[in-house]
């Protein structure tokens, strides 16, 4: 048990370190395609963190939807870029010191707010339901308590599809 816990801790700190490193590389690389590949590494490692946190279904969705669909979508759009000119230009705007200061300030603030004394206390629920994070538990919650938000999410996705087509459509005629 202690050994399993130690392995879990090691895995978590490995995943966290690689996540932070790949996120940093993703926002600082000059070549946008390299950035995308670092974001892919970030998404896969975050999926590993979800697994460690007991969210199996979320990890699967992360790999399928984020790494599989959204990232490929972004990579397609990178093909529209004028890549050599993009690489030649500066990566950050002239205001980047302000941005870095805002980022450090935000991280410090959020780190301070992470104080364990402020966390809500875990109540030990011992209901004999399905284990947390499995498809059964997620589906039961999603289709009972969250059925209205679920339908609204499907409407939002429909609106996004139609909106993307309308926005990107080539204007013809007058």
């Amino acid at each position, binding site marked *: 048990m202690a050994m399993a816990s130690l392995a879990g801790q090691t895995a*978590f700190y490995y995943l*966290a370190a690689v996540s932070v490193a790949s996120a940093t590389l993703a*926002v600082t690389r000059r070549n946008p395609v390299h950035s995308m590949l670092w974001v892919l590494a970030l998404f896969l490692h975050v999926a590993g963190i979800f697994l460690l946190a007991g969210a199996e279904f979320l990890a699967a969705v*992360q790999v399928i939807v984020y790494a599989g669909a959204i990232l490929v979508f972004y990579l397609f759009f990178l093909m*529209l870029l004028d890549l050599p000119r993009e690489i030649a230009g500066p990566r950050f*705007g002239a205001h980047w010191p302000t941005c870095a200061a805002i980022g450090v300030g935000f991280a410090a603030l959020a780190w301070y707010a992470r104080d364990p004394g402020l966390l809500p206390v875990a109540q030990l629920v011992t209901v004999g339901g399905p284990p*947390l994070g499995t498809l059964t538990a997620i589906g039961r919650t999603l289709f009972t*308590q969250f059925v209205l938000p679920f339908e609204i999410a499907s409407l*939002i996705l429909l609106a996004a599809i139609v909106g993307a087509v309308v926005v990107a459509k080539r204007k013809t005629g007058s």
Partner: protein
Amino acid sequence: MVPVGACLGLSAVLFAIGLVGFLGRRNIILMLVSVEVMLNAVNVSLAAFSQHLHDPRGQVMALFVIAVAAAEAAVGLGLVLALGRNRPEVSVEDLTQLKW
């Protein structure tokens, strides 16, 4: 079992990295990707709280965040496409028509 405090710290750092990328990068597509990094950071903290409180609702919220992220990617990249039709370069510094 992941310590929830460490997860929240990781979430804070990832969110800050995404924030810096969103505010600082010149390329509009990379700004949108930075938004995805920020959404992922929020999902990490939702999953951590879900485990901490033994409540599947956090994970359901994370699923909704993923759905909204997909919608945001579709609309955002549609806007970039409409923008790129008029000008090939997608640098935010050139988009100053709405500036006064």
